Structure formats: structure tokens, C-alpha cells
């Protein structure tokens, strides 16, 4: 099964029953599989007229009580930005899958890229926090898709599932566990009666409880700055309270959301940081560098946003040189550099996309970083 | 030949048509005059008073003419006027 198909199966396993999409290479296989599969499990797939429509139709379905997602790539992701903002503002749990390709613009439709990472973080206007996951194999496309849905329900936030063309088209064995072994987070519906319920009043974890349309709560949901009732309030105070909470419900739970996979970093002098397909290339590069006598480990970011700042600070405090390997000219690199606070050398092994890294390119940077240390 | 109506047919009072009472949410009014212009029985005029927003709200000049048709409520863009039925026995 390839990554695109595994992503679809993962979503279905997570309970996703509404998908709106628009075909775009290299994510098309996901919508094609949904079109075949979802009617058989009691869900709806609709091919919308464009990505703008797809990205908001899923939010309509979420408020109707469905778990929903959309999937796209490069240019389509740019079109979806407005509705990522809407999903953040209205705290609408949903998943956006981006099978990244080379950009900017139409770029490289059939070849990989990892240059949408900052767009995932900051693409919509305004200040906000989202969660972004990066799988590195078809198996992880399945497994982490379930995590993506669970996180979106837990924090009522749109979750970005940042695949890339390589992962999407990579065919590997995928083990699908028994349905009862899959941990699925249900939506947190309120138990309060309509007269006591305030749709945007945060519970203890800063996340409000949800209701769905048609349940008699007669809620108002708006993309405008709103108070607990959901009514628009045009004031700096309300803005401060709302945006502060939207940002902090993710930031303050960073440790809980954090998902990193560290390999051999305890004794390492150099740590390679990577995510997605590049993390797999980095494994080979690390083996190559170790042959040359460099003590090097790998820190793989599965959850890239919220960024695990404390982990990077810790590595920097321990004096480990850092090599950021990613398929762009420095996006997460600057985050790493910021967290390193100049205490250790931070090197970028990057390129513009279109192909995975050459193993030697990352290995060279590892050796160079090691030299910087001494 | 014109039909003649009797005030007291068969010795009974002629049954009255529906009657209504106009309720004006005066301070919600923005003085557009729609209700005054389109009241079919000319129950309302614009008053010379000002409301809290500085508009002239309507006032009822012919309360007896209101037939509770509700046109004023329907055409009022401000949801600031409506009529309440008056039960026939209280007329």
C-alpha cells in the first residue's frame, strides 16, 4: 500500500466519515481511494469545485457532527489557508493533509518538497498555533493519521498532516491493527443543557466543549473575534483573551503533544534533526558519518508544530552540534537556530526540493558540524 | 342595487373584525417611516419626539383602526414594532 492509500485508511480508522477534496498531484490517490472506500463505510466523499470549497465544506460537516478531512498539495494548500484560519478561530477539529511537492507556484507537481512547513505554521493571516505531523513511511501515514484526528479532537484545532510526494507514492507493507486496538478520541460534546452552555467558554484544559448543529443549542459560530457566547465583539480586550487562549491551548500543552523519535543522541556530539522523508535519508547519512568516526545521533520530529523548543534547548545546552536536514533552504532550520541561542553550531543541509537529499550531502554537513565543535 | 348593511342584523351586534394594539419599541426605531407609509389603515404617524438614538419614532394616532394585520411588523427592518391581537370581548 502506498502512503496516499494508507493515509486514507488511517483516516477511516480514526472515524473520518466526510471528505471533501479536489484532485491535485501528488495527493490525488487519497481522494480516489476515499471515493471508492467511504460509501462502503457509511460516509460521504464529495469532489468540490476547488480547494477553497473543500477546505470549508469539511468544516460544515464537522459542525454537523462528522469527523472530516481534506487533502491537497502545493497550490491547493495555498488556497486552503483562509479556512485554516477559520478552523483555528472557530475551533473546528479537522485534518488538512498536504502531500508536499516542489514549489513555489505550480513548481514540481510530481516531485517531493518540504517547503510548506512554515506555510503550515503561519500561512493564514493572524496569530495562531496549529499542530503539524510528519510521517516518514506508509505505515506512519496510517498510524499518525489516527493521531492527527485524535489531536484535532482533543485540542479543537485543525491538524496539518504534512506528507511529501515520496511518502505519498512509496509502496511499503502497512499493518492495519484490529479495530478494537485502535485508540480513537471521540468528540468532546458538552453535557450541559442549552441554557447553561456557552459555546466558547474554555474548560480546564483551555478547550471549550462542543455541540453540533441540530441539537437544539442554537449556537452562533463566527470567524470574527467572539466572546464565550460566540457573539462578535470588536474590542482589543476580547481579541486578547481569545487569541491568547487559541495560542496557549497548544503552546502550554506542547509537552503533551510532543512526538519526537531520538536515536543514539545520548553519546552523540552531533545531532541531525529531520522530519518526513528526509529523516529516512538521514539514517543512511548518519551511518556514513559514523564510519568516519563522528558520534552522531538522529532527532526525528514527528510533531513539528508546536515546535519542541525545550528539546532543542536541551541539546544545545549539552553542547551538541546540530544539523538540520530538510528539503528547503531553511524553514525549521531557523527555529532550531533560535532555540540553540548561539550556544552550538547549527548547520543546514537543505536544497530546493525535487529529489530527496543525497546521503553524502547530509554526511558532509555532519562531518563539518563535528569540525566546528573542535 | 347597493347592499345595505345593518348595524344590528337580527337584533345582534355586527361581529367586529380583528382588532390589534400596536407596540412600538421606541428606542429600537431608526425612523425609516416604512410602517407609517405602509400601514394600510393609517394608524401611525412619525412623532416629533426624539428617541435615544435621535430618530423620530412612530406614534399611534388611530388606535381603533388597527386590525392586527402585522404589516408594520413585517416591514420594520429594526424589529421595533409589532401588533398584539385584542380579544373581541375586550373591545
Amino acid at each position, binding site marked *: 500500500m502506498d502512503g496516499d492509500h494508507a493515509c486514507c485508511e488511517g483516516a477511516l480508522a480514526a472515524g473520518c466519515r*466526510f471528505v*471533501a477534496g479536489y484532485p491535485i498531484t501528488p495527493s490525488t490517490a487519497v481522494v480516489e481511494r476515499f471515493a471508492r472506500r467511504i*460509501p*462502503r463505510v*457509511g460516509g*460521504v466523499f464529495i469532489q*468540490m*469545485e476547488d480547494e*477553497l*470549497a*473543500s477546505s*470549508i*465544506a*469539511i*468544516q*460544515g*460537516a*464537522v*459542525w*454537523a*457532527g*462528522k469527523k*472530516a478531512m481534506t487533502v491537497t498539495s502545493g497550490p491547493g494548500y495555498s488556497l486552503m489557508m*483562509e*479556512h485554516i484560519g*477559520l478552523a483555528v478561530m472557530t475551533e473546528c477539529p479537522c485534518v488538512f493533509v498536504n502531500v508536499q511537492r516542489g514549489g513555489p507556484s505550480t513548481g514540481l507537481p510530481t516531485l517531493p518538497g518540504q517547503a510548506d512547513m512554515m506555510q503550515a505554521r503561519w500561512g493564514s493571516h493572524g496569530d495562531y498555533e496549529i499542530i503539524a505531523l510528519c510521517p516518514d513511511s506508509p505505515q506512519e501515514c496510517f498510524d499518525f493519521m489516527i493521531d492527527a484526528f485524535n489531536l484535532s479532537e482533543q485540542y479543537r484545532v485543525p491538524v496539518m498532516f504534512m506528507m511529501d510526494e515520496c511518502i505519498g507514492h512509496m509502496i511499503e507493507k502497512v499493518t492495519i491493527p484490529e479495530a478494537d486496538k485502535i485508540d480513537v478520541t471521540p468528540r468532546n460534546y458538552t453535557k450541559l443543557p442549552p441554557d447553561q452552555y456557552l459555546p466558547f467558554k474554555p474548560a480546564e484544559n483551555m478547550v471549550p466543549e462542543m455541540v*453540533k*448543529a*441540530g*441539537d437544539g*443549542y*442554537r*449556537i*452562533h*459560530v*463566527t*470567524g470574527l473575534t467572539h466572546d464565550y457566547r460566540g*457573539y*462578535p465583539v470588536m474590542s482589543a480586550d476580547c481579541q486578547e483573551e481569545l487569541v491568547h487562549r487559541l495560542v496557549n491551548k497548544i503552546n502550554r500543552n506542547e509537552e503533551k503533544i510532543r512526538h519526537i523519535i531520538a536515536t543514539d543522541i545520548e553519546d552523540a556530539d552531533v545531532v541531525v534533526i529531520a522530519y518526513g522523508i528526509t529523516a529516512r535519508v538521514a539514517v543512511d547519512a548518519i551511518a556514513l558519518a559514523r564510519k568516519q568516526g563522528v558520534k552522531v545521533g538522529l532527532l526525528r520530529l514527528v510533531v513539528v508544530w508546536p515546535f519542541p523548543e525545550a528539546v532543542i534547548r536541551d541539546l544545545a545546552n549539552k553542547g551538541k552540534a546540530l544539523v538540520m536536514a530538510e528539503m528547503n533552504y531553511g524553514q525549521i532550520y531557523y527555529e532550531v537556530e533560535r532555540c540553540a541561542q548561539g550556544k552550538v553550531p547549527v548547520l543546514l543541509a537543505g536544497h530546493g526540493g525535487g529529489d530527496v537529499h543525497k546521503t553524502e550531502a547530509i554526511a558532509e554537513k555532519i562531518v563539518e558540524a563535528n569540525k566546528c565543535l573542535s | 342595487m347597493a347592499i345595505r348593511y345593518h348595524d344590528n342584523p337580527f337584533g345582534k351586534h355586527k361581529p367586529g373584525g380583528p382588532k390589534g394594539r400596536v*407596540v*412600538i*419599541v*421606541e*428606542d*429600537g426605531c*431608526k*425612523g*425609516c417611516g*416604512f410602517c407609517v*407609509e*405602509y400601514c394600510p389603515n393609517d394608524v401611525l404617524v412619525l412623532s416629533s419626539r426624539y428617541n435615544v438614538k435621535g*430618530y423620530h419614532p412612530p406614534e399611534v394616532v388611530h388606535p381603533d383602526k388597527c386590525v392586527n394585520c402585522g404589516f408594520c*411588523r*413585517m*416591514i*420594520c*427592518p*429594526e*424589529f421595533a414594532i*409589532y401588533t398584539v391581537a385584542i380579544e373581541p370581548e375586550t373591545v
Partner: protein
Amino acid sequence: MSVIDELQQAVKNSPRQSPGDEHPMSNFLRMDRIPHIWCPTCGIGTTVNCFAQALERCSIPLDDVAVVSGIGCTGRVAGYVKTDSFHTTHGRAIPFATGLRLGNPKLKVVVFSGDGDLFSIGGNHFNHAARRNLDMTVICVNNFNYAMTGGQVAPTSPTDSVLTTSPYGNFETPFNLPFLAESVGATFVARWTALHIHRVTESMIKALMKPGFSFIEIIAPCPTIFERKNKFGDGLDRLKFYHDNSEIIHGAPTKDVDIGLRNKIIVGEFVDIERPTFIESMNAYLKRRLGSDYDIYEG
């Protein structure tokens, strides 16, 4: 206490409102949000009255109704109606409503938005929702301009209309909305003005009860901008204009109902046809192809 709070307090304590008289709209409107933001003599509030009346007359429980709006003056309707209401992004009310309706086909989904929102930025979504015959009612309050942003020319502004971005007069050809709606597949198409309150209500009832994609255009005065800039007087003058210049022709060929700046406005119910809705078609096709593997979708 803010100015708004003071006003609300004042409205609540209004001496003319006798205690015990409950506002007939209080079940339908979010009274805690009234007064609304619309200008004096604006026609949008009137259309909301008609909508409330239509819902009441069809006996649709308000809990089952969802109102979706986009952005703009009419986009604010969702904020004032006491149903499940969604104020979405600019132009995207229809795709949001698509998801809402498909997510829960028991909901009565109504899109209430303006001409710029539905036909300029959201034009493509309108076409496709009508083509698919998605079960929803689209109510478009057409005030011929972008009023919320200060009166720019819209795709519905009649030729010659003077607006802030057509200071020398609009030289473009506007959309003829009923014609557009019919040609892309709407099953019910009507046009009225804000003066035709009973007709609007009747058409709304028909649209709400009709399965499939129904469309009602309501021409409403925008006294602050369109009427002022084009020397039509205020909203009341404009209602008088509608009174004198609208002609009711039910079933008129929609290609003939375009609107000139000062011409006669043809109103009426133009289209009323039957077509299988999106969900009906989906269920029929998938059942035929998948047999026992497919359960009829009901939400």
C-alpha cells in the same frame, strides 16, 4: 457600560412596550444582539422578518434550521437569527452549507447572504451547488453594491450606477441572477423586492419546502450608499420606486428579467422544476452499483 449596553437597556426599558408583551420575534432573533448594525431604512431587516414568518408558517422547528452566511451586510444575518447559525468566510457560505447538509441531511440549511458574497467571490460555489442540486435554500439580498466596505461596484450593479469604484458610472454588464440560477440548475427561482413582504414570505415557504436547490433574490434598498450615490433618495423613496416600477410576471423567461438602473423591475416566481437532489442521486446510484455493501445515507 458600553454604548451598546446602554441602548439595549434603553430598548428593554422602552416605555412604549408594555410589560408582558413578548416580542413576537423573540424566539427567532437573538434579542440580546438587537439593535443590529444595519443602517436606517436598509432592507435587510425586512427580509429577516419574512424569513421568520416563513419558518413559522412551514412549522419547521427552529432547532432543525441552520443559517449560513458569508461576509458583508447580509452576511450578518446569521448573527441575529436564533438558530444554529454560521458566519463563515467571504463567498464560502455555500460550500460550508454543503458540508453541513451532507453531514446531517436532517438539517434545513439556508444560506442567507448578499450579492457580492454569493456571486462575485462565491460565484463558482453557487454554480456548483445548483448543478449538484444540493438541498438548500439560498436567499440573496441584492443591494447592487458592496455596502459593508463602503459601496464598491458589484457584479450585480446595474450599468451606469455610480459607486466608489465606478465613479464615472459602471460600464460593465451586471449579472441577471434569476437567469444565472436557472441556467446552472436551480429548481426554484424567484425574485422580489423588500416591499413585497407577503410575496417574499410565500416564495420562501415554497423554497423551504422544496427539495433541491432553491434561490430567491430580494432586491433591497441600500440607502447609505447605492440609493444615495445614484440619487434614489432614502429607503422609503426606494420602496415607493419598487411599488411603482415592479411588475409581477410569474414564469417570465429569466433571460428577459435583467435589471437596468432606473428601469422596470420584473419580479415573480420564474422557475419551479423537479430534479433529483444530490443525496437522492447519490443513494440511488451507489445502491445500484454497490448493492448490499451500501447503506442508504441518512447522516
